[in-house]
């Protein structure tokens, strides 16, 4: 391994080198941890069709990771990509998309985080980092414009993600926005299957065990000094106009204005009313807690908090705060997203706000996905209550709402100690291993992916999306401004056919968003505005129709990747508990499994895939301009 290296660049431009495209850095940074080789390659020729982020990542994954290259194989790629809007003056454009073959499903993964990474990377001159190989010893990647080094990280071993960031800030004498660090904690080093990659104090690429992939490569962190290269859009005035329209929409639109003011905090009280807040591992949807104390303003009121905005962001979303009372008083924590309140709170029977914020940050620091931890911990708690797991098996008694016990479990899982070694495999594998009645209590998809922190038995579109998706989490997510693409403004959420048409109908929107290098929350605006911003940035003209087509191309490529990995239609189902009928609450009269097969049929029909094989049809691929993929998929 070379202790220091300079990114190799072509000595001079070849005659055939494509001209640089505004908005892009125009280069991919390649790292081979096995050999220590670092090089760059130009990227321009297919930018218009793949855009960046998940689009670029899907292409590289499909081309370079074959079916025998499992998640823990050195040849697996860890792609840290950003997109054409990153670093430009559009809200939330520090975006990072991690694409890899993930540890939970052993299939395609795409998971996003924000902060400053994407902007720092672009200012350093790169659109993405593609990591392959495996270092001989724990290492970290240092990027400072053309200086790119694989450095020893023995001194960071065992440190949690916040400690790692602090250590690297100190080492390089830089703090704040001048340096971006994404790293793994002990859970990633110990290959916990639901390890995440965490960065910039509170931002997490959490899905499908991408942190375990990083751990397997013995890559502790990626540390980028904010680069010095200029980044010019094609049409600066047009870009600022589109950015203003996006910001105005976020501030004033009836739905997104709540995101603007409070981020995802309104989820707790709102979703409870709909029976969608997961409580005690799906054993109930009711509580005696006064839910008016869980409204967003009151969730902030108990803490000394400060805005912790991402690159160029004007939202009142991310916050850092200090715990004001209780045994953890004085500790600095990241304000939980909705999923933190659910996964580190309600799902495990914990409703003390100070304890939840503390536990949520401990999960981030260990680099565990808060959703999967919630399913794991809630499962253990329920099984112990019912006698399906014993104190002897687990090592101690763990009751609902026991924050100290939950933290002990975090430690056991992160270090694979005792029963934690089994739990580190995720709730699907752990429950299958234990078997019996315990197996019936676990919440998971049969692919092995973690559901998000909702009770999807009251939100059928998300269960269908989670089970049919090809990226290790939901790929379509919530419908946003769906009337813009001709879909109904609202549907009956318990009419399976309507749900499936909606989920299938919006496929591609989120893939497009995730190609741009920005934030899932600031991009909850009209596609038209995003397409205008992209057009102004690049000089290419994109329409709403282009956006959906490009998104659906990416979805099809990831689906093809998964099929090649052997992940087919037979695993597009929820576990018994995940797909069960609620016993109480607003959704108690509705059983999704009564309509599941029909929902799948309608979804397949809507997206233009073949339900028998799971493949996008030839016609669909032709419409998407993916003839090359049709040849791959349908050659036999």
């Amino acid at each position, binding site marked *: 391994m070379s202790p220091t290296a300079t990114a190799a660049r072509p000595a001079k431009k070849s005659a055939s080198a494509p001209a640089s495209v505004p908005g892009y850095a125009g280069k991919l940074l390649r790292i081979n941890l096995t050999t220590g080789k670092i090089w760059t390659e130009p990227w321009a020729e297919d930018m218009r069709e793949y855009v960046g982020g998940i689009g670029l990542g899907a292409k590289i994954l499909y081309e370079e990771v074959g079916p025998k290259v499992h998640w823990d194989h050195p040849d697996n790629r860890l792609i840290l990509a950003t997109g054409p809007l990153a670093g430009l003056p559009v809200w939330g454009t520090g975006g990072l998309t991690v694409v890899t073959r993930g540890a939970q499903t052993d299939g395609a993964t795409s998971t996003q985080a924000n902060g400053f990474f994407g902007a720092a990377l672009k200012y350093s001159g790169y659109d993405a980092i593609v990591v392959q190989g495996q270092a001989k010893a724990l290492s970290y990647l240092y990027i400072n414009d053309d200086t790119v080094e694989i450095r020893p990280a023995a001194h960071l071993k065992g440190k949690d993600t916040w400690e790692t960031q602090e250590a690297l800030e100190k080492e390089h004498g830089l703090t704040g926005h001048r340096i971006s660090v994404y790293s793994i904690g002990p859970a990633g080093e110990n290959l916990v299957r639901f390890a995440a990659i965490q960065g910039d104090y509170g931002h997490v690429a959490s899905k499908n065990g991408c942190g375990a992939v990083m751990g397997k490569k013995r890559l502790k962190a990626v540390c980028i000094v904010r680069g010095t290269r200029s980044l010019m859009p094609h049409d600066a005035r047009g870009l600022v106009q589109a950015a203003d329209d996006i910001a105005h929409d976020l501030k004033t639109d009836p739905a997104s204005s709540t995101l603007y*003011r409070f981020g995802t905090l309104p989820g707790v009280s*709102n979703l409870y009313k709909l029976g969608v807040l997961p409580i005690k591992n799906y054993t109930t949807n009711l509580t005696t807690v006064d839910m*008016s104390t869980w409204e967003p303003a009151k969730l902030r009121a108990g803490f000394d908090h400060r805005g912790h905005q991402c690159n160029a962001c004007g939202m009142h979303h991310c916050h850092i705060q200090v715990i004001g009372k209780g045994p953890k008083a004085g500790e600095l924590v990241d304000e939980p997203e909705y999923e933190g309140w659910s996964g580190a709170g309600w799902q495990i029977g914990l409703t003390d706000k100070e304890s939840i914020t503390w536990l949520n940050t401990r999960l981030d620091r260990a680099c565990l996905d808060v959703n999967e931890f919630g399913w794991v911990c809630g499962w253990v708690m329920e099984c112990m209550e019912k006698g399906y797991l014993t104190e002897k098996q687990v090592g101690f008694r763990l009751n609902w709402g026991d924050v100290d016990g939950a933290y002990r479990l975090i430690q056991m899982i992160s270090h694979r100690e005792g029963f934690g070694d089994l739990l580190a495999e995720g709730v699907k594998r752990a429950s299958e291993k234990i078997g019996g009645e315990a197996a019936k209590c676990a919440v998971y998809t049969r692919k092995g992916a973690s559901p998000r922190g909702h009770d999807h038995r009251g939100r059928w579109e998300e269960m269908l999306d989670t089970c049919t998706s090809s990226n290790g989490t939901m790929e379509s997510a*919530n419908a946003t401004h769906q009337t813009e693409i001709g879909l109904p403004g609202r549907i009956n959420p318990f009419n399976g056919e309507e749900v499936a048409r909606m989920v299938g109908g919006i496929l591609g929107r989120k893939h497009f968003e995730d190609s741009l290098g920005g934030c899932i929350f600031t991009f909850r605006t009209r596609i038209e505005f995003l397409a205008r911003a992209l057009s102004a940035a690049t000089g290419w003209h994109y329409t709403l129709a282009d956006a959906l087509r490009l998104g659906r191309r990416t979805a099809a490529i990831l689906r093809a990747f998964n099929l090649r990995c052997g992940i087919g239609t037979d695993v597009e189902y929820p576990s018994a508990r995940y797909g069960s009928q609620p016993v109480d609450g607003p959704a108690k009269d509705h059983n999704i499994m009564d309509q599941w097969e029909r929902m799948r049929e309608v979804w397949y029909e809507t997206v233009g895939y073949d339900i028998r094989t799971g493949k996008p049809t030839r016609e669909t691929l032709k419409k998407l301009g993916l003839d090359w993929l049709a040849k791959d998929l349908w050659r036999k």
Partner: protein
Amino acid sequence: MAQVGSRPALSATFEVTTWVTRHVGGDGSGSKFFAETFAPGETLRQVMRRFSARHPELDAALWSPDRTQLGEHLEVVVNDAVLGVTHDLDTPLTGGERITLLGQFMGG
């Protein structure tokens, strides 16, 4: 009992929650409750139209631009069931209903 014309009036309660309360004079937190009387046979659509007409900001947020359908950003929950389950817009109300207006939630 109050009378609407010659017929006895019925009543439903509107519960406007959290940030949606800003459209009805609230501060964006808690819930605000409004009793709404109506005549027998009136539908949910009619009662909601009359209620929202008194609150222009809510009216703009609740309905589609052409005012023919509900917009996509507010959830309407009748007696703890989202719209489409026990009630649709053209279901006649019978009195005693609790109609909750809930802001759509985005994100994870």
